[in-house]
């Protein structure tokens, strides 16, 4: 039996090709994901371990709870503590470190990097072991800095250059006195690191005389636990926490592993989708192989093979195919792993170096996935093979299309689809989070239902295309009839494409609608021309607003200041705004009362008001940060947007209660600016100049904001497209496969058509149109389901977003449909050629 099975595989090499390719792609995706994430993880681990080379014990300040429900603060790590740490017998050296956001500009004056990875720190003493200098000398005062070698290379800076940079307020123009190398993960990931002398760093980061952390290095022969014990004894235990470098490295590597596993799982989901789509092709191929071999299999049964042996022979074939595909997929997967790494390298995310990791687990999963998926998909056809009666060996029938009734199938499909639609609809009526699970469940049910129903749907949908096909004369007519000839096969082929397109369309609808609504939210009620904020979204220095207020052409400004406090004893999100100008800068729809901020009058957004039971005219008690209480009146209730929500209170009311001494000065997250001339490049430039062309500060108009949102969505959407492309490619292989099968099975007919006068072009057109019909059928189903899911998911999200509105991306959907058509034509290239090249005489005679 084993030998016959293997012979069969070899005999049907060409026909199994697409199956192997489909499985291979899925396996390649899986193993590529594993290779990539394992290698990346290993490289990051190695790097993070290196990063802790200079830390045997890290000392961090303890959190000190404040009394009276107010926010607490950290103990201060002073120079004294550093010296005490260095003085313990086991310590070789103790370094106090400070760090913070440091924006550094390129030669064009624009911020280097994306803002979040722009870091600054201190260079310890004359020779800091953490940062070996490549060139130059250590910085001595505020006018001198060091920059990392990667950034220097990227921006083209060298020792002696002056750089524009900023920490929070003013722009500084220090000189680069040296360039250092570092293993810092942030730098490896494309960020920048700027180092100051310790005193300047502490001053710039607003932590005069204080350190964030003390890194203690042990003497040779002293273990980090021993050192830690010594330090615990020497330092005030309620003020500091000590952690060994080993533990830090372990924690870090655990963090890396867990962030990697998220990425890995995400990628594997998409690999799973490809594999799932691949099963359709496998099942199709084996169904056909079994049908073609009916006589042969019946003969085996006639000469005494048991049913189980017949099934087994099919499964052995599947096993062989799966193994070949797994090996090929593994090899391709390693290639994908390498490719992904270099791809990330060329994008804005350089990858740390490291060896390629191909773990035994990766190899095992490649084989398990390849073989199991193939055998599972071949199981049903195998069962069907076993049911062939021995007497079939005697009949002259061959390759009869299954004419088994579809009644059961249609009933089941209708039940599933109906239940799916019902559950999804029910879910849309639910509240955001509650509805997620039922919605997912309903979606799965509906997809299964539609998949089961595709044979039934194929007839009316394809019949609808008849008027178009009629243009192509007899080729079109034959193509239409051929495509519904084996509804199950057509259905499986189209379903493969449907799944990919459902997901793609659903994502597109969702993303488009969300983008639009966020856009609308952010921009709708904003009358300001410009929004000024820090590149890393940290608070702006209060100077910024003052400067902007005095700038030429500026008519109104208001900060958006985060304020902490309690409203009626409960924590509430408060934003300090300039009560005098906020009315000019925003135009929120007012639900109740009046939009009036100033003195003791505040406004509250609708949701907050509702949840607290406040109305316009209600009086509330605010507890400020300095524990003082004040009675305020809610003047109005407004409709919030993405940018502004919560309690709006006048900064003048807040000011007396905020001070540097309390640990947090005014935290202006953003400043809104209105200019006399509205938005223009010149106005923007003028504002930027007012702020000293500070690389740390972003000046954005509404369009910039909107572009930023769009960019984010485009990025996510493109990633999803890229990942789903694999599933679509597998589906295309399925179309090729089905057409090749059709051509093969119908070679006699094609030969006859050629004989009675259909030319090669006509034959090609017939195959191409059949392919087109199948592809478009799958695409239409996918688009329909995708829009439905997109709408349903939007309803769910929309319950939490006031401005949510369904946006149907007609243009995109048109493109998808067009792409499906292109896919259809491309998939038909080879089968159509084969059909046209068929030797007429052999085809007619072949039986």
């Amino acid at each position, binding site marked *: 039996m084993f030998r016959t099975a293997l012979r069969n595989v070899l005999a049907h090499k060409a026909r199994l090709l697409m199956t192997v390719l489909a499985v291979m792609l899925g396996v390649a995706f899986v193993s590529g994901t594993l290779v990539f994430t394992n290698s990346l993880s290993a490289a990051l681990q190695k790097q993070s371990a290196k990063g802790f080379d200079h830390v045997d014990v890290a000392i961090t300040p303890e959190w000190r709870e404040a009394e009276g429900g107010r926010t607490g603060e950290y103990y201060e790590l002073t120079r004294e503590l550093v010296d005490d740490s260095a003085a313990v017998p086991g310590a070789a050296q103790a370094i106090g470190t400070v760090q913070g956001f440091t924006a550094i500009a390129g030669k064009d004056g624009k911020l280097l990097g994306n803002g979040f990875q722009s870091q600054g720190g201190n260079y310890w003493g004359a020779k800091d072991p953490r940062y070996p200098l490549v060139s130059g000398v250590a910085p001595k005062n505020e006018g001198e800095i060091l920059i990392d070698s990667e950034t220097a290379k990227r921006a083209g800076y060298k020792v002696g250059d002056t750089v524009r940079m900023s920490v929070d307020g003013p722009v500084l123009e220090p000189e680069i006195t040296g360039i250092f190398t570092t293993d810092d993960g942030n730098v490896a990931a494309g960020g920048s690191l700027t180092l100051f002398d310790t005193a300047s760093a502490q001053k710039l980061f607003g932590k005069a005389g204080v350190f964030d952390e003390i890194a203690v290095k042990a003497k040779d022969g002293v273990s980090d636990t021993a050192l830690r014990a010594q330090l615990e004894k020497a330092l005030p235990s309620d003020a500091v926490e000590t952690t060994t470098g080993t533990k830090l490295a372990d924690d870090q590597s655990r963090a890396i592993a867990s962030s990697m596993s998220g990425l890995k799982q995400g990628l594997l989901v998409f690999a799973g989708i490809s594999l799932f789509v691949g099963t359709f092709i496998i099942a199709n191929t084996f169904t056909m192989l079994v049908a073609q071999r009916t006589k042969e299999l019946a003969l085996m049964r006639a000469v005494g093979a048991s049913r189980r042996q017949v099934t087994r022979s099919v499964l052995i074939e599947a096993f062989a195919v799966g193994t070949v595909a797994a090996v090929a997929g593994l090899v391709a997967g390693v290639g994908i792993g390498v490719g992904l790494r270099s791809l990330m390298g060329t994008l804005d995310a350089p990858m740390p170096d490291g060896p390629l990791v191909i773990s035994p687990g990766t190899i095992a999963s490649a084989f398990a996935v390849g073989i199991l998926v193939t055998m599972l998909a071949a199981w049903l056809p195998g069962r069907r093979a076993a049911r062939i009666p021995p007497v079939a060996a005697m009949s002259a029938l061959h390759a009869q299309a299954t004419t088994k009734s579809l009644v059961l199938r249609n009933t089941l499909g209708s039940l599933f689809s109906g239940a799916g639609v019902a559950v999804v609809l029910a879910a849309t009526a639910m509240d955001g989070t509650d509805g997620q699970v039922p919605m997912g469940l309903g979606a799965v049910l509906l997809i299964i239902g539609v998949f089961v129903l595709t044979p039934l749907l194929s007839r009316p949908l394809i019949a609808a295309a008849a008027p178009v096909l009629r243009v192509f*004369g007899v080729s079109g*007519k034959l193509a239409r009839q051929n495509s519904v000839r084996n509804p199950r096969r057509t259905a499986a082929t189209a379903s493969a494409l449907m799944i990919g397109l459902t997901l793609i369309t659903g994502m597109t609808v969702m993303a488009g609608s969300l983008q639009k609504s966020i856009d609308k939210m952010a921009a709708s009620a904003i009358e300001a021309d410009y929004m000024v904020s820090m590149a890393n979204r940290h608070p702006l220095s209060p100077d910024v607003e003052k400067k902007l207020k005095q700038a030429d052409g500026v008519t109104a400004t208001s900060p958006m200041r985060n304020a902490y406090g309690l409203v009626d004893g409960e924590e509430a999100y408060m934003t300090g705004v300039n009560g005098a100008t906020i009315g000019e800068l925003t135009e929120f729809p007012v639900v109740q009362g009046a939009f009036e901020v100033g003195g003791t009058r505040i406004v509250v957004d609708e949701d907050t008001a509702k949840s607290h039971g406040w109305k316009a005219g209600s009086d509330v008690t605010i507890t400020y940060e300095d524990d003082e209480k004040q009675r305020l009146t809610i003047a109005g209730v407004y409709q919030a947007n993405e940018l502004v929500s919560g309690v709006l209170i006048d900064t003048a009311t807040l000011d007396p209660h905020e001070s540097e001494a309390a640990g947090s000065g005014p935290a202006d997250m953003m400043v809104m600016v209105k200019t006399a001339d509205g938005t223009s490049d010149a106005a923007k430039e003028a504002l930027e100049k007012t702020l000293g062309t500070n690389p740390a500060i972003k000046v954005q108009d509404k369009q910039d904001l909107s572009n930023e949102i769009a960019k984010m969505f485009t990025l996510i959407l493109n990633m999803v497209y890229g990942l789903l492309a694999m599933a679509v490619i597998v589906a295309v292989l399925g179309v090729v496969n089905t057409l090749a099968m059709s051509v093969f099975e119908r070679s006699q007919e094609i030969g*006859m058509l050629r004989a009675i006068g*259909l*030319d090669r072009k006509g034959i090609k057109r017939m195959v191409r149109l059949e392919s087109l019909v199948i592809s478009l059928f799958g695409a239409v189903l996918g688009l329909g389901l995708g829009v439905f899911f997109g709408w349903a998911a939007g309803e769910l999200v929309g319950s939490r977003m006031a401005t949510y509105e369904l946006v149907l991306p007609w243009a995109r959907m048109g493109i998808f449909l067009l792409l499906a058509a292109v896919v259809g034509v491309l998939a038909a290239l080879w089968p159509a050629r084969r059909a046209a090249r068929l030797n007429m005489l052999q085809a*007619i005679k072949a039986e």
Partner: protein
Amino acid sequence: MTTAPTADRTTTVAARATELSKIYGQGETQVVALDRVSVGFRQAEFTAIMGPSGSGKSTLMHCVAGLDTFSSGSVRIGETELGSLKDKQLTRLRRDKIGFIFQAFNLLPTLTALENITLPMDIAGREPDKQWLDTVIRMVGLADRLSHRPSQLSGGQQQRVAVARALASRPDIIFGDEPTGNLDSRAGAEVLGFLRNSVRELGQTVVMVTHDPVAAAYADRVIFLADGRIVDEMDGPTADSVLDRMKRFDAQGRTS
């Protein structure tokens, strides 16, 4: 040179092969399937081509019908020389001038009987001649079966559809490749009767390859092939006379 007595009579010739040779392979493995065959098929005549297996009878038909290429010589259908035609022109010639009937019926299972009959006209994008179509359909007795699919028809009925398909486009000549090979004797007789009637009553030209002497007896003339050559010809054949002639081949085959 084997010049069988196929001289032109008074009637016109629908198709003619002159010095037609078909050679497969080269050198040692060379097989001569047709060896300088010259033959004419007269209009409104029913010709049967007979001969033992491997005699080249099917190859001759394929070459004359424009289904296969030949090595040398010439083939004319009406006034058209086939040797110089490209695939596309050859296809068009088959479509417009030639009808086919195959042993395995070769109907399209997705089309109804009527659609199968009009298929050649559909391919050509021509409207079938309604009156002629009715005549043909009435002749083969399929009037009440037109909306059936091939799978709902018996073998004999399917072949009658095939005959109607060949006749419907009024080709210059119809070629049949063992048209009764898959039929029982009664159904076969029916089909042959239709073919003969089409010649007698409608003036159709029919050329049929067969190995069945009974089938050959329906023809006006039988051409005998052996080893790629025409070895004999018989006018007004009967089953017995054809059988006798065929037996001589067997005897030759055994003695040679």
